[in-house]
């Protein structure tokens, strides 16, 4: 928990107890902690080797922004708009990295064949797995930022070795990460499930260029990265999608329990497992979490 968050919680509890003495002492205590926090400067909890990678990433991001700015001068219309969107996205990435650097949570980057972002609650550590490319690192770092800002959460499930993505994880979160990756790489290659109709239409029109490699989608415009595309991302044709089990509607800590329940119909075991189905649908998720984690601290979310 960040110091600011602790500050907020202590004030809330002091106000709730109704004792002015308690509030005063809490404020004094927290003010001194805030002073020492500020004097210590940025709390850099990035693992040392990951820190080097992050510095490289920031340098390369700035270079990419400069390069795209040069291209933009020679571009017109849709291409110019796309370049503008990419620059905006990359600038946002630089800002978001600052927040990750300042986080109380430790972050570590590891190279893996299967890019992923996971959270270990015991060590309060976010682990960013990326496929050695900077595009992939940016993609997964976006998840780290989403975690820092309460757009995604993790839940410890009995018997599971890893914390699972919580009820706030939605398709929009994935769209954001793919857009981020595209902004850096300039092209996004995805294996997608094609509907039977789409496939037949492509075959009839003779537009398939990759011979037998059907199902590959090459995206060259940011606006084409949508939830409809991402939900069909697959490793092999005809396979069922795990993405189809998450909410299409954007969810965050302030979403109502009704929205959370509606968006997670495919994960009803989580809804009933947490007892959300029996609660007031208008209550914000964060209020539910605050009460829930007092007895059973198994939801990890920042707010």
């Amino acid at each position: 928990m960040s110091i600011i968050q602790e500050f907020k919680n202590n004030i809330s509890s002091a106000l709730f107890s109704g004792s002015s003495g308690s509030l005063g002492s809490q404020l004094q205590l927290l003010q001194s902690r805030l002073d020492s926090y500020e004097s210590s400067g940025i709390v850099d909890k990035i693992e040392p080797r990951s820190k080097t990678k992050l510095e490289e990433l920031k340098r390369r991001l700035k270079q990419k922004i400069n390069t795209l700015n040069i291209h933009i001068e020679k571009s017109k219309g849709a291409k110019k708009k796309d370049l503008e969107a990419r620059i905006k996205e990359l600038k946002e990435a630089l800002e978001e990295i600052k927040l990750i650097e300042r986080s109380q949570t430790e972050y570590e980057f590891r190279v893996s064949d299967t890019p992923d972002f996971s959270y270990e609650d015991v060590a309060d550590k976010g682990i960013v797995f990326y496929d050695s490319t900077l595009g992939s690192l940016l993609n997964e770092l976006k998840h780290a930022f989403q975690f820092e800002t309460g757009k995604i959460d993790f839940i410890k499930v009995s018997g599971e070795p890893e914390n699972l993505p919580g009820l706030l994880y939605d398709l929009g979160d994935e769209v954001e990460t793919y857009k981020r990756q595209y902004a850096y790489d300039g092209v996004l290659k995805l294996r997608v499930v094609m509907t039977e109709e789409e496939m037949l239409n492509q075959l009839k029109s003779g537009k398939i260029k990759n011979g037998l490699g059907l199902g590959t989608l090459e995206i060259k415009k940011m606006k084409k990265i949508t939830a409809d595309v991402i939900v069909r991302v697959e490793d092999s044709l005809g396979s069922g999608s795990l993405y189809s089990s998450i909410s299409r509607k954007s969810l965050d800590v302030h979403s109502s329990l009704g929205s959370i329940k509606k968006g997670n119909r495919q994960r009803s075991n989580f809804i009933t497992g947490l007892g959300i189905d029996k609660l007031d649908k208008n209550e914000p998720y964060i209020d539910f979490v605050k009460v829930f984690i007092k007895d059973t601290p198994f939801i990890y979310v920042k707010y």
Partner: protein
Amino acid sequence: MLNIKKSILICLILNSFLGLSQESFIKNTYTTYSDESLPEHSLFIENSRVLLKVYSKGLFPEKNINFISKITKDTICILGEEKDVDQTKGIKLNNDKLVSKFVNTRFYIKSKNLIVHVETERPYFNKTVVDSIFGNQIIYLVDGKILKSEKDSIVLKDILDKKKFKIQKLKMLKGEKAIKSYGILGLNGIVEIKGRYRRCQ
């Protein structure tokens, strides 16, 4: 008397060897098609161990579920989920859909390369065999002839060229339908094409 003892001993050794070979007969990863009810997954079977592997996607980590099972000569019975991780921490989820699809069900061992889930009739193919045949590519059948090699992709290019080939019938089969019609070849889907090459002008 000694000869009888010897014969019994030889029989016992042979029997134990055959028994062992039956047990170690299945030591492979088996793959199947996926659909709305089941995400992409595979089964790893080794002696009496059955492991269900669901591949990672987005923030969903890879999921490995160990099943308690009993393997006989031609059947694999899934008796329950083996839980070796601390069960006291975290929220408890009831009726995990994925696990419930396998617990108290059976697989019929047709051969080393094919096992069939009895309750759903879903076939699981030896992954090594599948990968060596066609990886994760769709199979094209042009007038009954299979296109699957790199060389065949040139043929396919001609077929997709309206000037060179006239398509008379085009059909796409996926999932269960493809498997029922074409067996292992239908694992990633089948495109049936019927037509004729145009004459050169």
